[in-house]
């Protein structure tokens, strides 16, 4: 499987480490009302879609960047690769 890195171009997936669902980016505010329930959802609940899935990959044997890879779980086709920090910032995170 080839992951088309946004900065470095096509790279073999063996250079990467898979973390899981990209919803991990959306860490709840621990001081918010209902934080306990929000963290329960954040830690334990995962969608298991048959189709497009956003997931986090770490380019361990490359530039050590975190990527958000959109992959079709039925065909393994990768339709989109973004830098996780850009995704996080676009969702209003500062880091």
């Amino acid at each position: 499987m080839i992951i088309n890195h946004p900065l470095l171009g096509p790279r073999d997936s063996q250079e990467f480490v898979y973390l899981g669902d990209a919803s991990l980016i959306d860490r709840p505010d621990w001081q918010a009302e209902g934080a306990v329930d929000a963290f329960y959802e954040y830690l334990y609940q995962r969608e298991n879609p048959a189709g497009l899935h956003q997931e986090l990959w770490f380019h361990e044997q490359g530039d050590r960047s975190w990527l958000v890879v959109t992959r079709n779980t039925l065909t393994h086709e990768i339709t989109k690769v973004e830098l996780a920090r850009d995704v996080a910032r676009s969702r209003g995170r500062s880091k």
Partner: protein
Amino acid sequence: MADHRLKPITQLGGDTPRKDSFPGLTISERTDTALASLSARQGKPAQFQATAKAFFGFDLPGAGRVATGGVYTAIWTGQDQWFIEAPFASHEDIAPILKKGFGDTASITEQTDGWGGFDLQGQGCITTLEILCNLDLGKMAADSASRTVIEHLGCILICRETGQHYTVYGGRSSAASLHHALVTAARSAL
């Protein structure tokens, strides 16, 4: 002052840098380079870039690239991160030298003895390296670099001159394994 009877050794443990020759390729231990990592701190990107330009005399290279000017070579290793090479003889204390120039715009860590470097020179470079790593070496332009895996070891591969001159940096504690991999590949390829 204490009388230290210490003897400097190379990453392979020798008194002098090791050199292995093959038809069309020389692999030499690199012992004359001081290394430091340079990472831009968050929040002051413009100030950091201006400081870098003033300090090095050139702009820090972008993704996958290497830039050289004067005594310094900057190697892109990740977003907002570079490795800096300088001559060991004049820059043994490279980290404080950089820190003085960059102040609190950057985080700097000395890397000199964390890594063991090998230079590969000659027209046999690509045939040897293509056995070892999965980078597309033919497309690697001069002054480009990438992290890669060689013999299960995370390495930094720098292309100084396409097809002719490459540098491989690997963890110093596994320098002998990296050297063994390079020599074995060269023997089988050339």
